């Protein structure tokens, strides 16, 4: 595996391998000295065109725990603000000897473009409304560690599916790993034309009793002013996860959220902070999963 651009590129065996390696990495994170020498002398560049403290820090921690040299390049206050193109930035990173570039970008497909212009590995850390593969992998890891398996589970992904890179990556990966996925949201926030492998539902209450995993998506503020739904209150009433809805779920079912949350909008504090919620675990698991990805892309073949 050269790049990680989309979860569509992962077959079940490779995805499972990443999750297995992540399990080993998690044991490192539990040690007093959280460090492996695996990527010593390798350079990982975090190229962030969007602010994302959570994802950047997670990648940074992952690379450092593998002893890689980490360079953080944020678009703000950089050559990008002076009008440098992605291609020229790619050449600059190339000239500096980047072995891997972790890219977060507001334009869908930017990592695919970047992969044409650098010889190192490219890791997609979220591109526009397209994909966020490591988020899907850490979600799969979290589901597997809580539920013991992924195959055969029913996962409901709820909210702004249309604009969600988390949803896209999860649908592909969960299908590959044998889960059944139902997308739930107002019809305005579900793509008009989906392939047949996914179910769509508009009634959250009808889906909840059958779900093993309920994955809530963040609703961006700008959707509220663009007539995707009438008001934040109406959205919460129809698609928000509150205590009453939590109790409609089977006793074993878990609640996930990629963060950052809009408390009171798509999820109430009661649900977010309940023992059924995996939100904090997801953050912890993120580091292990990203270590596994970097290991596979940079170290595994050596």
């Amino acid at each position, binding site marked *: 595996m050269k790049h990680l651009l989309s979860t569509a590129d992962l077959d079940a065996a490779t995805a499972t391998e990443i999750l297995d390696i992540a399990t080993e990495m998690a044991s490192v994170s539990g040690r007093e000295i959280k460090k492996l020498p695996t990527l010593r002398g390798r350079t990982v560049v975090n190229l962030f065109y969007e602010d994302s403290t959570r994802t950047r820090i997670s990648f940074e921690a992952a690379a450092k725990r593998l002893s890689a040299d980490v360079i953080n390049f944020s678009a703000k206050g950089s050559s990008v603000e002076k009008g440098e193109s992605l291609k020229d930035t790619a050449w600059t990173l190339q000239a500096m000897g980047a072995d891997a570039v972790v890219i977060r970008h507001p334009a869908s497909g930017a990592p695919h473009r970047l992969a044409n212009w650098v010889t190192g590995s490219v890791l997609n850390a979220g591109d526009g*409304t397209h994909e966020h593969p490591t988020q899907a992998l850490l979600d799969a890891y979290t589901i597997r560690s809580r539920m013991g398996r992924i195959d055969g589970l029913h996962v409901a992904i709820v909210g702004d599916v249309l604009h969600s890179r988390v949803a896209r990556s999860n649908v592909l990966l969960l299908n590959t790993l044998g889960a059944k996925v139902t997308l739930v949201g107002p019809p305005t926030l579900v793509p008009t034309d989906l392939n047949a492998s996914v179910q769509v539902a508009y009634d959250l209450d009808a889906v909840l009793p059958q779900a093993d995993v309920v994955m809530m998506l963040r609703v961006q503020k700008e959707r509220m002013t663009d007539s995707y739904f009438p008001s934040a209150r109406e959205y919460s009433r129809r698609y928000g996860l509150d205590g009453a809805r939590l109790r409609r779920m089977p006793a074993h079912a878990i609640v996930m959220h990629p963060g950052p949350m809009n408390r009171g909008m798509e999820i109430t504090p009661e649900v977010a902070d309940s023992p059924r919620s995996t939100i904090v675990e997801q953050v912890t698991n993120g580091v292990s999963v990203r270590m596994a990805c970097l290991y596979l892309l940079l170290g595994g073949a050596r």
Partner: protein
Amino acid sequence: MTVRRTPVTILIRNARVLGGEPTDLLLRDGVIAEIGAGLSAEGAEVVDGTGLVALPGLVDLHTHLREPGREDAETVYTGSRAAALGGYTAVCAMANTSPVADTAGVVEQVYRLGQEAGLVDVQPIGAVTVGLAGERLAELGAMADSAARVRVFSDDGFCVADPRLMRRALEYVKAFDGVIAQHAEEPRLTQGAQMHEGDVSARLGLTGWPAVAEESIIARDVLLAGHVGARLHVCHVSTAGSVEIIRMAKARGVRVTAEVTPHHLLLTHEKAESYDPVFKVNPPLRTDADVEALREGLRDGTIDIVATDHAPHAAEDKECEWAYARPGMLGLETALPIVLDVLGEDWPLIAERMSYAPARIAGLDGHGNALTAGAPANLTLVDPTVRWSVDPTGLASLSHNTPYAGMTVPGRIVATFLRGVPTVLDGKVQK
């Protein structure tokens, strides 16, 4: 660069006019002086047409020449070279230049640049509204009365979305037999749109450009044109639904004509999977079903013409993220090969769709005439047996944004003549 201004007499030997029996054509004083077997070559330069098909010079109703304003992407001269090499003898230059061609001054400038280039007749198209802003009419009459004699008006790149303004424009140009060429795109339905809205856009996370944004404007405009009895031309039709609406309008007697581009006849939205913006175009590449409907519409005459929408873009406007790239593709040098690929060697149909009909719509009397004695000597010679591989840097355009790179296409333009003067000979442009 030397310009051949001296009148020449040219004898084309053994060319097959529209694929018919081999015959000779004598070009003299700008017209086809004689057609027939065994003509005398005395005093004439001989061009061997053996194995070649003679077509009337092609006419493009939709070309972006970028001058004035983006001379780094294309100029009237370089675009004229590309046109001649593509078999064209006339092109209509779209108005979205900088400054916009919305005054007599700018259209006359473009017209003059075309005359100076001297490779094809460059017929400027005038903007419908001032600055393409869609707010008030440009001085359409002044452009019509100018030396450029503008008859086609278009805000191409933008839709004349305001229905009242569109109605007025359609009505107003009736006074000088003008036509409004509409870029049909309801802007409120395509905000931020990047590609055809469908299963591929859903997967790629690119904002969708729904077919209904085109179809709803065409439906409105054919009703408006019918209501005021005006001529409407629909640019770059891209969906099956649009074909159906235009078919219905024609059956009702509305004076509507329509064009399709070569790329919409061949390519589909799956091309976006590479995220390579060379496939980004407006309207976007659509589905197989749309391509089928467009081909059928072109064959049955619902769609009157093929127009290139030749849209050169500088490298930096394409070598970037998809969402930041400008939409548009080169077309002039590959149009005939693509149409040949799609329609097959139906030469009379190709002549109608790529020469006669576009010249009629544009009001270009000197072009789009059948190749008969006495007609203006605007023609091109094609070798249909040659298949060639498209090399972006091998094209004459200043820009390289062809979507056909590496593709093998049929049909090579061997020679083109503008009023009897060769603009292309042996596949090489003459200036």
